[in-house]
């Protein structure tokens, strides 16, 4: 019998655009030496829809349904940033009640996004069960969104100067019930996952990013906070009414995948805690008499499509659950923007992937890719 000879060539494997994880259509060309990864090249562009060019031909009202399709899991953030840009350009003030509604919606969306990050992350690693648990909670959030906006996922809710409609009666109580229930849910995940030895074996020490390196590569969001840098745009920029709420930045020092997981889980717990205590009570007390006058009620709350963007440039940003989501907006004295540049967090965070997977095993690619938390809808736009 002839002994098989081992070949010394490197093997190039294509983890093609179609694959069962929920990141989207991402193609990875991986060069392997046995099971060690030599190089990994992500190829993007499979979901490119020309969002930026479309924005140059649509007014803001017409463009709002498009923006939820960038990051389709944390949809309120994309809408928030789309209306924040023109609001800053036109110096438009948002009523306090609308600001509170926005913050509640944004935080619910953040919880939803981190939930749907966790499910596929665990499924990629091999644990199928958390996927069903997160969908159970996400359905509750969908119900809340549907009651307020009419749509489960692609709500067209934010408008320039506020939100489209006020919350229905009894929504706040339902939201408080959800918050109480969700705390038990997060505890369940912690018990199931965080000290699980199999999970720790897979995630601890995998994909370490130092803090200097994280800044150099332009990372943002949980990736930066997991590497020891306490940078959160909600604290730094103080937009909407976040400075009235009392909460802390969640961060870790190690910079590996476990740290990123911990940051996201604890930021979920964090999102619901303080805001529900302070804000919802405050909500019931706000009367907003000035904004209930005739003029404001019928004229300034409903911007017509002919809202003109002045000839200025502006960069607005929000702290999306994936990182810093930004819009660089150049207005022309017309209803269509001249340039609408989307700065997606996933696009930048994905750049560090080839760096991190060198010298790792093949199975670690999925762990690292999952812990970076990307959505191809926003990466490709």
């Amino acid at each position, binding site marked *: 019998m002839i002994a098989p000879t081992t070949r010394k060539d490197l093997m190039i494997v294509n983890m093609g655009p179609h694959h069962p994880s929920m990141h989207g259509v991402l193609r990875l060309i991986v060069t392997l030496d046995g099971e060690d990864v030599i190089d990994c090249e992500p190829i*993007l*562009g499979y979901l*490119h829809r*020309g969002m*930026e*060019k*479309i924005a*140059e*031909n649509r*007014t803001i009202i*017409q463009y709002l349904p498009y923006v939820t399709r960038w990051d389709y899991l944390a949809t309120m953030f994309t809408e928030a940033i789309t209306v924040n840009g023109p609001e*800053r*350009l036109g110096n438009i003030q948002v009523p306090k009640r609308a600001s509170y509604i926005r913050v509640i919606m944004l935080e619910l969306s953040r919880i939803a996004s981190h939930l749907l990050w966790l499910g596929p992350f665990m499924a990629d690693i091999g644990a199928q069960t958390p996927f069903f648990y997160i969908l159970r909670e996400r359905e509750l959030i969908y119900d809340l969104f549907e009651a307020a906006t009419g749509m489960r996922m692609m709500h067209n809710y934010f408008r320039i100067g506020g939100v489209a409609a006020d919350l229905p009666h009894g929504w706040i109580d339902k939201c408080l019930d959800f918050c109480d229930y969700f705390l038990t849910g997060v505890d369940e995940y912690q018990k199931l996952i965080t000290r699980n030895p199999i999970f720790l074996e897979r995630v601890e020490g995998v994909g370490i990013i130092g803090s200097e390196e994280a*800044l*150099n*590569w*332009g*990372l*943002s969001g949980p990736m930066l906070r997991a590497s020891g*840098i306490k*940078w959160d745009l909600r604290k*730094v920029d103080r937009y909407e009414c976040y400075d009235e709420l009392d909460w802390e930045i969640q961060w870790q020092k190690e910079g590996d995948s476990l740290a990123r997981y911990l940051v996201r889980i604890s930021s979920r717990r964090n999102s619901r805690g303080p805001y529900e205590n302070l804000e919802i009570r405050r909500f019931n007390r706000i009367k907003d008499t000035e904004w209930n006058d005739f003029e404001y009620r019928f004229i300034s709350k409903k911007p*017509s*499509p*002919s809202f003109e963007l002045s000839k*200025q*440039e*502006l*960069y607005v*940003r929000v702290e999306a659950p994936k990182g*810093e989501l*930004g819009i*660089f907006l*150049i207005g022309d004295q017309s*209803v269509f923007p*001249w*340039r609408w*540049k989307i*700065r997606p967090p996933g*696009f*930048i965070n994905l*750049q560090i992937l080839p760096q991190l997977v060198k010298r790792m095993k093949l199975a670690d690619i999925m762990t690292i890719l999952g812990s970076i938390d990307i959505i191809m809808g926003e990466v*490709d*736009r």
Partner: protein
Amino acid sequence: MDNQFIFKYSWEILPKKWVQKMERSEHGNRSDTNTDYPFQLLCFLKLHTYTRVQVSIDICGVDYPSRKRRSEVVYNLLSTRYNSRIRVQTSADEVTRISPVVSPFPSAGRWEREVWDMFGVSSINHPDLRRISTDYGFEGHPLRKDLPLSGYVEVRYDDPEKHVVSEPIEMTQEFRYFDFASPWEQRSDG
């Protein structure tokens, strides 16, 4: 306001050759430079102790077809240490090449590929300059204003030939353009 710190300091320190014009506005400060100098300017901003702009947030291209140097490349930068943001802009025309800023800011690699793909502004000595978002074999630079929104070709799967073919575009419906000049606005200056 924190943004003014980097701005004022760099205006005083930087050689005038590098910075053509600096503008301060409530929506963010910008400085304009020549195409020869973005690399030096960004290196300075990154490494100098009082500016420490370590994060390159965004590199973006803008197309102004009416100008002679039609593309403008905008670098949006952030300093986490001083919590300041600054924008650096250069203008280039179709054949000017810009130096890449990949060595100080590794995240710029993909952004510059996108500027090349969408606008046609290429970089000298870029480590990896290829198309990034458009289709394999796409011709043209989509975000320029002269390429129409619907493009020139459409692709479809051709069953007899068993592969995807590209054909000139065929639209069954006219391109809808809504002119939003409202009758009330004409009375507004009065």
